């Protein structure tokens, strides 16, 4: 299944997350903000730290554009928790561990050959509809600029 496309209803999920949290999409959407859902291959893989660190550094920008950020990998909760602490990541890192990759599968970004989630970015609007969808080459750190651009476009359309 290819990655879910713009205009699709975002499948709901609820997973354990770093910082002893349980994070659910529908609960987050109730706050009336957009939710950036970033899938990444694995905690402690050589590129991810940078990607998530950039998101961390850009949190104020995401906030300014009415978006919350969460990131999902197929690692177990202890691993993502250690990763969050090592990198100073304060937003929620979700463990899509059991059944492994079930959420990534729903979003069409589970790479079953490698047993890892693709490096993929989605923006879900407060109505629960996917407004942005992008799959990055696995070794390429996608950065935050395209997400911030997309959020800015969404804001313009609403205005």
């Amino acid at each position, binding site marked *: 299944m*290819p990655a879910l496309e713009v205009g699709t209803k975002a499948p709901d999920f609820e997973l354990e997350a770093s910082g002893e949290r349980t994070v659910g999409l529908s609960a987050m959407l109730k706050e009336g903000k957009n939710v950036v859902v970033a899938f990444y291959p694995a905690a402690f893989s050589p590129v991810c730290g*940078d990607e998530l*660190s*950039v998101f961390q*550094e850009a949190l104020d920008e995401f906030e300014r554009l009415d978006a919350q950020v969460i990131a999902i990998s197929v690692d177990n909760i202890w691993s993502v928790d250690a990763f969050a602490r090592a990198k100073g990541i304060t937003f929620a890192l979700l463990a899509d561990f059991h059944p492994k990759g079930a959420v990534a599968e729903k979003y069409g970004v589970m*790479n079953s050959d490698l047993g890892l989630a693709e490096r993929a970015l989605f923006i879900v609007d407060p109505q629960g509809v996917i407004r942005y969808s992008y*799959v990055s080459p696995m070794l390429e750190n996608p950065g935050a*600029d395209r997400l911030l*651009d997309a959020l800015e476009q969404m804001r313009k359309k609403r205005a």
Partner: protein
Amino acid sequence: MSEAHQEQQEHRLRAPVSDDDWSRGPADAPVTLVEYLDYECPHCQAMHPVLERLGHAHRDKLRLVVRHFPVASSHPHATDAALAAEAAGRQGKFWDVHDLLFGHPGRLAPEDLLNHARQLGLDLRRFEDDLNDPQLTRKIEEQKRQGVRSGVNGTPTLFLNGVRYDGPRDVESLSQAVAEAGKAADLRG
């Protein structure tokens, strides 16, 4: 790997190089390389001698610009180090501190930064005042914000004539990229 929604997108510098930037090399150089860096980042550390050699090899046609991107979430001293470079810059010693910071990895604690300033003969009282000047903090924050918007996706991130450079970071590859950017600039006249 899924090919869905693959797009080739150039990442471009949103904030053009200006007189507010720290730069080395001729101001009218046909090629400008902007580096977003973090003084606590080991990859930036490794980049430093490479860029020095690159600058030397292309000294007539390359201008090197550095901007701050302290990844404060994982590098607790990075912002202070950036402030130290900026504060030294107010006394005309930005590049000296820049070189000292990369020349002495791991020495970024407050007392180390003061030692660097002392070693360079800076006015220490003024240096300490400037370290606490909110204007410098804002400058660094703004560079970081612009960096994120331009596609900085970690440190170091390089831009060659305004376009993000994602190629290999050895001297030879970069040298070739600089030469190509120079040719492209010539063609545009």
